[in-house]
């Protein structure tokens, strides 16, 4: 790794950075996550052929020893750096006692190199090696992870960075940050807990005393009206994340907050942070207090620069931001779980061993009426056929004011969503009676912050994409679920209940319309092809993973140019395992 950092600036005596602690860090930290990062135009430290060995090995996670799945002895796995235009040669050897796999998340490649057991290949048997070979035709920040069982929860993941042909990263230095959620519980136990005991990990439920307090403050009638809908639906407005900080240790490059992963900079330098959410279940809100971040890429694809103070990163998404710290002082990189049950921090610092103030966790959040598709009702004016009426709107006007400022009309807003009278069956506990576009909303808990938060409508593609055709065909899919039995599905049918793939015709231009008929946020990932988000901008941003808010509808344009079978699923690991998975067939 590069070691170009100005040695004169270093003060080794500073803080607790002794030889011993340096060794301790080296043992747990992936070796690529060195504080120096990579400087512009460094030598590419990638061999032509890369060998990856998957094994289970004890490793210090936070202050306890766990048994993650490691890749070349590290968790997260090594930073793989490829160059646009090269042929990737990646040999993956399985040293586990069960099958494994690696999926290259966001990479356009042939069907049999995509790494989804049962869809693209049969998986990698124990003690066998699979040779992944594909031409790298893109650049940017991506990641890779197991697509076998719940292995991803055990840390079977790592960052994948592809340098552009010209080597220009648009900054003086770069750091790669992969966020993950670690539990010392067996992932199978976590899944069973979710299955048999609804709300098992939620320690932020509404108590009776909070209800009393609301009654005292706003009166019985208003409180009742706020509770009424949730009671009728048998859902909790505090159900934000299924698996929370009550079991998770949140990690930044494999280290918890106490270990404080640090990244060096020189004041005045432009630093590119490649941020990847490699979590199994956790959305993060990321900010660096005191620093403005300029978003320059989303899901590895360049976007026109957007200055923000904070952004929410859904599971499996990636964002590249540029920061330019001018002062010679440390800054906290703060990644807060979106249900506010925990956080992980690291430090961007001019010298090793410094740390900056760590912000408090913000209070637990609660879903408002917008989650039920109520927020925009006043705007849509469509009250017919809607069982909910205005008196239920309760005191929640903040969503409405958000809506009022929203002008641009999106294609999806003119698409009528129809539900069958009977709903989606026993597998779906609700339907969004009035789904709306929520791309301009920052998301739950960020509605009222006093700084700029990235929203999907801010994203503008840096340039036009090759296929500028209008869509010829439309496919509609509904995100559905039943919390009580932890069933998750599309159109009310779990993967095990559907009898065939979603069919794309090779070469066609499609509009995919998705409607979130649940109370949860879902990051939906399509393998093998890009999805251009119809967010009212042109060029559109293109994504491999799109997060849908409750009662939201979105539309995406897809060019079905990748023949074969591809996975399409919710990237919340336990939702996928519970059935929120489809195969898309392009033929």
């Amino acid at each position, binding site marked *: 790794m590069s070691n170009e950092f100005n040695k004169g600036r270093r003060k080794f005596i500073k803080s607790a950075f002794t030889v011993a602690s340096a060794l301790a860090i080296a043992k747990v930290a992936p070796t690529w996550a060195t504080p120096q990062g990579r400087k512009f135009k460094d030598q590419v430290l990638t061999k032509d052929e890369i060998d990856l060995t998957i094994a289970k090995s004890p490793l210090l996670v936070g202050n306890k020893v766990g048994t993650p799945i490691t890749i070349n002895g590290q968790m997260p796995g090594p930073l793989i750096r490829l160059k646009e235009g090269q042929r990737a040669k990646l040999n993956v050897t399985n040293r586990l006692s069960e*099958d494994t796999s690696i999926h290259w998340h966001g990479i356009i490649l042939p069907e049999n190199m995509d790494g*989804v*057991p*049962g*869809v693209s*290949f*049969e*998986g990698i048997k124990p003690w066998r090696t699979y040779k992944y070979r594909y031409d790298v035709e893109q650049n940017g920040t991506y990641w890779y992870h197991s*697509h076998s069982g719940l292995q991803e929860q055990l840390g079977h993941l790592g960052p994948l960075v592809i340098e552009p042909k010209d080597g220009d990263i648009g900054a003086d230095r770069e750091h790669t940050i992969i966020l993950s959620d670690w539990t010392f519980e067996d992932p199978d136990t976590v*899944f*069973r*807990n979710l*299955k*048999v*005991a609804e709300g*098992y990990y939620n*320690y*932020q*439920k*509404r*108590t*009776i*005393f909070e209800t009393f307090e609301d009654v005292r403050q706003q009166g019985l009638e208003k409180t009742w009206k706020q509770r009424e809908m949730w*009671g*009728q*639906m*048998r859902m909790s407005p505090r159900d934000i994340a299924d698996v929370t900080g009550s079991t998770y240790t949140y990690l930044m490059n494999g280290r918890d907050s106490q270990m404080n992963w640090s990244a060096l900079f020189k004041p005045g330098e432009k630093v590119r942070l490649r941020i990847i959410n490699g979590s199994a279940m956790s959305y993060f809100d990321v900010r660096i207090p005191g620093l403005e971040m300029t978003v320059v890429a989303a899901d590895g694809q360049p976007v026109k620069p957007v200055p923000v103070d904070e952004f929410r990163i859904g599971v499996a998404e990636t964002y590249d931001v540029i920061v330019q710290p001018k002062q010679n002082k440390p800054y906290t990189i703060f990644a807060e779980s979106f249900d506010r049950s925990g956080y992980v921090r690291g430090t961007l610092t001019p010298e090793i061993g410094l740390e900056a103030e760590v912000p408090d966790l913000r209070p637990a959040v609660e879903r408002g009426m917008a989650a039920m598709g109520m927020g925009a009702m006043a705007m849509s004016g469509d009250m017919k056929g809607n069982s909910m009426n205005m008196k239920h709107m309760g005191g929640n006007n903040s969503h409405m004011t958000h809506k009022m400022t929203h002008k641009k009309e999106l294609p999806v807003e003119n698409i009528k969503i129809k539900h069958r009278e009977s709903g989606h069956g*026993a*597998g*779906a*506990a*609700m339907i969004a009676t009035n789904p709306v576009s929520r791309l301009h909303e920052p998301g739950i808990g960020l509605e009222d912050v006093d700084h700029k938060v990235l929203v999907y409508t801010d994203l503008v593609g840096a340039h036009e994409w090759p296929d500028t055709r209008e869509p010829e065909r439309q496919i509609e899919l509904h995100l559905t679920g*039943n919390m*009580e*039995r932890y*069933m998750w599905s599309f159109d009310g049918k*779990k*993967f*095990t209940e559907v009898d*065939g*793939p979603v069919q794309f015709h090779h070469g066609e231009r499609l509009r995919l319309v998705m409607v979130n008929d649940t109370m949860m946020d879902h990051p939906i990932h399509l393998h093998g092809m890009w999805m251009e988000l119809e967010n009212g901008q042109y060029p559109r941003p293109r994504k491999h993973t799109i997060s849908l808010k409750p009662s939201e509808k979105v539309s995406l344009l897809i060019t079905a140019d990748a023949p*074969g*079978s591809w*996975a399409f699923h919710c990237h919340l690991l336990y939702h*996928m*395992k*519970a*059935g929120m*998975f489809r*195969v898309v*067939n392009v*033929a």
Partner: protein
Amino acid sequence: MYGKSLLVGAALLPGLAVAGHAKEDWPEPVKEYYTGQVLFDRLELTRTNEEENVAVWDMMAWYGGDYHRFVFKSEGENIQDDGEPTDLESAELLYGYLMSPFWSFQAGVGTRGSLSSDASMENYAVVSFMGLAPYWFEMDNSLMVNEEGDVQFVSETEYEWQLTQTSYLQPRIELTANLTDSDKYERQSGLSNLRVGLRYRHEISREFAPYIGVYWNGALGNTADEMKRMSEDTTETGVVLGARVWF
């Protein structure tokens, strides 16, 4: 003829190979999930106003997938130091089907009676609607028909007030009604029994939650009249100490 079917086969096969997302020897990317649970909702010691000590259980176990499950339910009690055998109030084996997001239909057979060697058990067929009603009322409604053709209806409802993230105040109502008279089992038609309880439960873990509580039990209608005629008390109160346990 033979040639034609070959042609059709050849035309079909490539399609099959592509459409079938799992080639034959490949694993399914997502499998059906089966699990089970044993839940003792009430495992308690009761002290009644008659100064009797009673050990009580009320449990359910199930195994299966999301839609289809085998369910075993049992309730019973043993009055301590009275020399009498344990009273099995119910032991039911049911098949359950999730018919709507919050409700499952269950059907099966059950038995009840005194657990002594010489007692004859009452066997019955049972159907239940079990689930979550709006506003989070946890309900189990059962209709039972025994070999004599006697019909009984039992409805249990529980609710939870969340006090803190790990403690709850939980009211519980159990109503029993006989749709027919039964000479053999000395049941009178009409509403026969109401039991109301309230307990405070504190979770040590999600799986293990001790509680303390009180209850009132009263006979109703013809049943109460009959008990009065026999000079028996028609009501009973008590305090309970127990735990809700699952694994």
